[in-house]
């Protein structure tokens, strides 16, 4: 077979099929994007919810139990978690949704659950709480939160409800997106935006803001 003929065959049977397959898949993706994103999100949540023991730093001190309602909790009852330690449960009752909350927010923690920025505070201390999660797994559902919705954080020492009062997209450098010096217990949830797999950009985040409406003060 001559080289020209071989080149024609390669073009016809390899290059062109790959070319049309790629664009065919791209067109299919664009057409089926909502289904694909949902599927990828569900897959990611399945992966994340499986027992991935990525390293020995991940542990838990959280106990899922009924708590006695109190107005105040002595500080001695609060156990400060280690970095990577599961210490609370974040839930949205009307979405039938819950996630484990870990202290710290490095990459390993964010693969496992919701991470808390260690430069924010634990629930009950009257100071801001900043939580983050991956947009297609842990925090996919926060896009459905509306003003007035209730988000709950349950710890071993208290159950705290937060009412959403604002949400929106903020761009890097996120000026004004958060204020961790506030003397107010504001819950800040954020994740990458938009909520899609191939078009997520690193310079935008989706923020949800909620203020505490119930739960004991830590004294």
């Amino acid at each position, binding site marked *: 077979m001559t080289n020209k003929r071989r080149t024609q065959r390669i073009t016809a049977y390899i290059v062109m*099929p790959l070319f049309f397959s790629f664009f065919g898949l791209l067109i299919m993706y664009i057409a089926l994007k909502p289904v694909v994103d949902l599927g990828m999100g569900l897959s990611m949540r399945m992966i994340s919810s499986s027992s991935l023991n990525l390293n020995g730093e991940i542990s838990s001190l959280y106990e899922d139990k009924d708590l006695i309602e109190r107005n105040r909790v002595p500080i001695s009852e609060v156990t*400060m978690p*280690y970095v990577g330690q599961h210490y609370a449960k974040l839930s949205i009752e009307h979405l039938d949704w819950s996630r484990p909350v870990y202290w*710290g*927010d*490095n990459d390993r923690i964010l693969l496992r659950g919701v991470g808390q920025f260690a430069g924010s*505070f634990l629930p009950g201390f009257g100071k801001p709480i900043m939580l983050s999660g991956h*947009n297609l797994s842990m925090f996919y559902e926060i896009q459905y939160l509306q003003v007035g919705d209730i988000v709950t954080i349950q710890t071993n020492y208290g159950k705290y409800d937060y009412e959403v009062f604002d949400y929106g997209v903020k761009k890097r450098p996120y000026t004004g997106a958060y204020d961790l010096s506030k003397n107010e217990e504001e819950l800040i949830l954020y994740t990458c935006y938009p909520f899609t*797999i191939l078009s997520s*950009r690193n310079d935008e985040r989706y923020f949800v803001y909620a203020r505490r409406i119930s739960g004991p003060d830590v004294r």
Partner: protein
Amino acid sequence: MKKILALLSMLSLVLLFASSAMAATDINEFEQKLIDKFTEGALIDGETVTLSEEEINLAKNFFMRDEIDLTEADVDGLLAAIDQIILIAQGANAVNFSDLTSAQKLEVVAIAEAAVAAIASVELTFSYDFDTNVAKILDGSGNILAETVVGDDSTVIKETGNDLLMTWSVLSAIVLLVGGSFVVARRKGLLDLS
């Protein structure tokens, strides 16, 4: 410089941790001196450099996890270490940790490690990874008490978008689909390469 102070704020954790029962406690007057120092900052190259609010919060959180209150002597020793580092930064006109030379960075980290070694009552390890710029303080059981990225840019907002696992899963699926189709087509004689 503020990132250097962040490193030193980690040192304060060394002096605070006492046992594995990590019940929270209030910040005492001596610990408050450290917080005041972080807030006051230092004059470097004509600029007053302080820790960010987030970094101060990090220090406060770890002061609260202490079962044994920091003594005046502990704070004096830590303040002395902070002053040593400030002198290095002032000498180099380094506002950021990255502005220091490699030798100066090693010296700053050595000061932090020495402060850890000076604590006799508890077993703690201070570590700084020059590749990832992550500083950690661990207890004797390997639990991470504090962890922070010592970098020039704010490290508050993290990357929470597509993670590598899912991205590669999608790309791999596409490649397998195309490649698999080619193999099947060839086996069925739909493609004649001869």
